[in-house]
């Protein structure tokens, strides 16, 4: 049972987890297409991947001979690096395609790009794109697996999985917890994927933001909605902060950074409302002094660097789950 494993997660060696269940999807496009069993499957696989990255020799060559293309239409240092390291630790050949050096700037359409890359016979393409649905569109045009590394404000499934893994390792289990997600929910793919995943895992979710940053229909996507952060943080187990993009200020979604921080920045006073053992998360990159007090971001309750570490494990697990199908079936 997964919960049993996570009682003492750090002590479980990879071998003890045994052969994972097959993962019944070709792509990972979003949390919306996963059920509870799929999510647990990936979290358990990721759990088993954690020790690999802590070994002196960080390699588990299950993807030797496989080709992974990281296709990032939006620049991202950390996510791209995380996928690259994950692929390399599994022995895959990893190629990074950055937008600047590709023909996207020459007017080539997404479909053309997909067809071109597909002809190079990759086994998996990891895609980040600024438009919602773009990764799904690309997945329809290629013969390999596709992983969504973020499509506009739609989904960022590996982020939600790594957040869930981080929470599970700190809290032992997901079910029954209360998680607050605070900040620019309207424009956040991290918020959408997390709300879907946590909802599927019976976690109570709270969305906390000024009304200008809450999307329509938010009440149907979480358990409770708060516009008062202190009220919203009352007795929560997890505080998940979101990055505030500067353009939200220029777009009058909030009048100033000063006012935003005053009402929606995570500081000691607001955090005091949460449970004493509440953990603090942030998908990065952080705006210290905008959405979070630096002392809290770097304080003892912050698990932000754990999230980054779990990111590699989750991405290894996802790559392995999608690419090691045939071998599993044979075995």
């Amino acid at each position, binding site marked *: 049972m997964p919960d049993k494993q996570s009682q003492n997660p750090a002590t479980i060696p990879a071998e003890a987890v045994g052969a994972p269940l097959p993962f019944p999807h070709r792509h990972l496009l979003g949390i919306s297409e996963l059920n509870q069993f799929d999510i647990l499957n990936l979290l358990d696989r990721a759990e088993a991947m954690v020790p690999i990255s802590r070994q002196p020799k960080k390699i588990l060559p299950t993807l030797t001979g496989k080709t992974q293309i990281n296709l990032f239409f939006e620049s991202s240092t950390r996510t791209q690096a995380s996928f690259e390291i994950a692929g390399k630790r599994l022995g895959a050949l990893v190629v990074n395609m950055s937008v600047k050096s590709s023909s996207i700037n020459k007017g080539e359409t997404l479909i053309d790009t997909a067809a071109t890359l597909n002809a190079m016979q990759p086994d998996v393409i990891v895609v980040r794109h600024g438009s919602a649905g773009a990764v799904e569109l690309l997945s329809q045009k290629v013969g390999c697996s596709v992983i969504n590394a973020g499509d*506009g404000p739609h989904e960022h499934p590996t982020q939600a999985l790594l957040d869930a893994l981080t929470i599970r390792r700190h809290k032992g289990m997901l079910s029954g917890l209360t998680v607050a997600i605070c900040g620019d929910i309207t424009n956040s*793919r991290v918020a959408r994927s997390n709300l879907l995943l946590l909802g599927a895992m019976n976690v109570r979710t709270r969305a906390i933001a000024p009304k200008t940053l809450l999307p329509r229909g938010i009440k149907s996507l979480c358990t409770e909605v708060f516009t008062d952060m202190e009220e919203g943080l009352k007795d929560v187990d997890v505080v998940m902060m979101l990055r505030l993009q500067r353009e939200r200020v220029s777009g009058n979604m909030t009048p100033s950074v000063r006012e935003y921080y005053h009402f929606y920045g995570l500081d000691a006073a607001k955090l005091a409302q949460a449970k004493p053992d509440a953990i603090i998360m942030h998908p990065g990159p952080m705006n210290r002094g905008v959405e979070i007090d630096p002392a809290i971001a770097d304080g003892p309750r912050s698990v932000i660097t754990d999230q980054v570490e779990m990111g590699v494990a989750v991405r290894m697990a996802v790559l392995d789950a999608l690419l090691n199908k045939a071998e599993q079936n044979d075995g």
Partner: protein
Amino acid sequence: MAKPLLIKNARIVDPATDFDAIGALLVEDGTIIERVTGEHPGAPEGATIRDAKGMLLSPGLVDMRVFTGEPGHEYRETLSSAAKAAASGGVTSFMCMPDTLPAIDDGAVVDFIIRRAQAEAIVNVLPAAAITKGLAGKEITEFGLLKKAGAVCLSDGRHSIQSAALLRAAFTYAANFDMTIAHHVADNSLAGGGVMNAGLFATTLGLKGIPVEAETIPLSRDLQLARMSGVKYHAAQISCSRSVEILAAEKQSNSKISAGVSINNLTLNELDVGQYRTFFKLSPPLRAEDDRLATIGGLRAGTIDTIHSGHDPQDAEVKRRPFAEAAEGAIGLETLFAAALRLVHSGEVPLMTILGAMTSRPAQILGLNSGRLQKGAPADFILADIDYPWVVTENSILSRSQNTSFEGARFTGKVMATYVAGNCVFEHNREATD
């Protein structure tokens, strides 16, 4: 001189005269000579006789909102290909929008359209001229000269004029020349780069939503300016419940205003977008089901006057893109009649009302002599089997572009023959498809 034509035993439905009976229609020299109830006493010598037993005989449809690609984007659609598509859908006259390259904002372009249409198009093409030069929303065009050249209406097509002062001037000047203004209402700042209806569904898809207020606020503004100027004003396409309410209230005291709705907004809703299907990316966007039902109610009550196809051919290049980046629009000339019949078969709107909104009412708004089956009117009519089952397939599409929002749709009712000025311009080949 063409032989006289007698259509007999048809169920003749003429909304202009509220006529619905089995009868016969006699046509000569492109004009309706006589309409009779029951048997015709006798056809003139040498007349061609067509027995239309079991068929509906209706005026040809008048579609007030059609985009073509001529001039400028002929690979999407020409006047000729649009006319063929129109004929197969029972549309005998369509108003072509000025969104061409160059835009129809000059008498010479109006003249070009009319001449090209006369030479190439098998149905009547009625040019709408731009309200503003280059559709830029800055300076008004030469309304008088455009009218003289043959423009039947003024419209900025896809574009919505944002300045109230400019609209006031345009409405007042249009009233001076007794021209109808057909305006698409959208507040660009409120629409804010949105790509579908604002709501829970847009939120889950991660797509930017367009609130209904982006339509209702400029609609209210336009109606006040229309009252102030006395212009014949047509709200080109409304999409939501609140707009129907606003119009109903204003119509109580202003008889010069009218409104249209796209067949898409009447028969589809936001959920049809599904997983980012760009053929359902439309302007105005497909709204919530409550809004769709409200537009049907508005149509039934006469608050909404006309139904149009909003035919907007777009090639694969601009449609096969991520939803937010894809072009808006769907073709619709070929499916307008059949899609509208859905509302008749479901019992939501009477046949007479549906046909009126696609024939006599748009003809009246545009000041046309057609859209009715009366002595002296042009012999533009259709024969249709309203119970004929068929499925829309990619192969059956006559338009140069394939972006239909009804691909694979099952319809009951089809146009079997289309006549323009007494000439048969379309005949459905039952053997080929049955």
